[in-house]
């Protein structure tokens, strides 16, 4: 009898310990990054592009990377959204429960697990084939591939949960499938759709491996889709790779900026979803 109690308590203790380790690792990552990054941060880092000799420790900032990352991620999110919403709606409303829908879902789940470097390599081979150089457009395409499975499956999950009664009411009023889908389903799923968009946006901003070859890196803010574009994750990576402590300090600061952006996207998604709840019939 006693032995069972001891075993019970031992494993419960181990579980709590493990949970604490997981939480602690999150906190340690956040705290170290903010403590190391924020002191190295100054206004010119946020408002200037790199000047001559920036990577030797001279004046300038990483505005090029901040703007580049936003361009890349927003561009990819727009394209991914344009493909995801129809796909998710199709899977749930148009296609009958068939081999095709389950095949699509499964291949998206599998696509989800594909390492982002593969998207980078694949994107780049396509770009060489088309005779393109590393550019904003190339980066956007690679990030779109990264975002698609995340966004579609997240939207799919929420649309799946919509009670069929709502649709039936709309059909009973004589609405077509498209009208029902757009006016009832899309609206009902709005909070979830917004969360899905923000989730994918956050991933895209933080991903380095897929833009490494496709978007390149530059000290300028891109002026067209065919200019190369810098990005924050790569700014962290390249600055850390220099042998100068001043520049490495800036890598910490860039990391903190990236972390703050990603965290605010995640918080914003919760707030947006809450606001959108007013369109939802409960």
């Amino acid at each position, binding site marked *: 009898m006693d032995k069972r*109690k001891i*075993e*019970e308590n031992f494993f*419960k203790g181990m*579980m*709590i*310990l*493990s*949970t604490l*380790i*997981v*939480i602690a*690792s*999150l906190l*340690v990552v956040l705290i*170290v*990054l903010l403590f*190391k990054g924020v002191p190295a941060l100054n206004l010119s880092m946020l408002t200037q592009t790199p000047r001559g000799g920036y990577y030797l420790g001279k004046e300038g900032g990483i505005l090029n990377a901040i703007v580049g990352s936003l361009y890349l991620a927003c561009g990819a999110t727009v394209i991914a959204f344009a*493909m995801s919403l*129809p*796909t998710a*709606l*199709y899977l749930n409303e*148009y*296609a009958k429960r068939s081999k095709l829908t*389950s095949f699509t879902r499964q*291949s*998206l789940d*599998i696509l*989800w*697990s*594909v*390492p*982002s*470097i*593969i*998207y*980078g*390599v*694949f994107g780049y*081979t*396509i770009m060489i084939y088309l005779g393109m150089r590393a550019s904003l457009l190339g980066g956007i395409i690679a990030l779109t591939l990264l975002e*698609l499975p995340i966004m*579609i499956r997240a939207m799919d999950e929420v649309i799946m949960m919509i009670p069929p009664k709502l649709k039936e009411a709309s059909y009973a009023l004589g609405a*077509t499938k*498209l009208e029902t889908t757009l006016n009832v389903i899309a609206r009902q799923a709005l909070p979830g759709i917004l969360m899905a968009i923000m989730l994918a946006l*956050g*991933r895209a901003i*933080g991903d*380095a*491996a897929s833009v490494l*070859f496709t978007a390149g890196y530059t000290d300028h803010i891109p002026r067209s889709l065919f200019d190369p574009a810098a990005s924050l*994750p790569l700014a*962290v*990576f390249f600055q*850390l790779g220099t042998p100068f402590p001043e520049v490495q300090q800036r890598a*910490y600061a860039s*990391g903190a900026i990236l*972390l703050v952006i*990603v965290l605010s996207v995640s918080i914003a998604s919760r707030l947006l979803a809450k606001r959108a709840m007013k369109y939802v019939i409960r």
Partner: protein
Amino acid sequence: MNTRRLKDLVASKIMFSAAILSSLIVLITALALFYRSIPILKTQSLSDLFLSSSWHPWREEFGFYPFIMGTLWVTALAMVLSIPISLLTSIYLAEYAPSKVRGIIKPMMDLLAGIPSVVYGLWGVLVVVPLIREYVAPLAGVITTGYTVLAGGIVLAIMVFPIIISVSEEVIRAVPRETREASMALGATKWQTVKHVVIRSSLPGIIAAIILGFGRAFGETMAVLMVVGNVPKAPSSLYDPAYPLPALIANNYGEMMSIPLYDSALLLAALILLLTVLLFSVIAEIILVRIKRRYSLG
């Protein structure tokens, strides 16, 4: 009325093509990578590619062995560190934790999953690498820069936590409550119930969770690249540097186009990576689909 019908028809066709297009991406990617790696597969035998340690692109020698071993060492270590902690955490969250605690921890898991890999890499360089150099390696009597398999494994283990935890928590919670009650009614303690009943019936799902985590660890690029040292030699201990496949691709692809086969070799590396990850995620997917079917029917 007719325009409404027409709109409906056009929309359904558009949605259908979007669905088809997005489900074909994996296939297209694999085919493109395969097509581009044909040149190297034609000139070198598979055993040379996979078992040779000689990586000298300018002499057209492409032995992937050190890189494959590097990937396996780092991934295996990450899994060894991550599996027990993740499983205990997910059992705690699913079976023991009060819903309030779960409500706090779940968003934290989302945060952990959302942190960019470069940030993990940076953290590894700032914390894990010096820790190994100053404290851990001297304890073991080894002198190292700290950029080691161990550093890569630790950073990866943390990155894999949220995947294993969230998937396995879900499958554990999916075990019907009656199953637990039956065991409790026989006088089993909570842990006995978990050990003999809950884990046993959710085992396939837990395995799927582990496989998904493995796939993530296997293909993770930037974070590992930053802490693992990148020396093209098969590691023989935790304190050796390693050079995993994704790091090889990231460091070299797009640069050395002057050597004709180099490009093809790196694309072959990408193909190996993709096929391995695909294999694992297909297995995980099959297991998870089976579980879903069982619970929705039963």
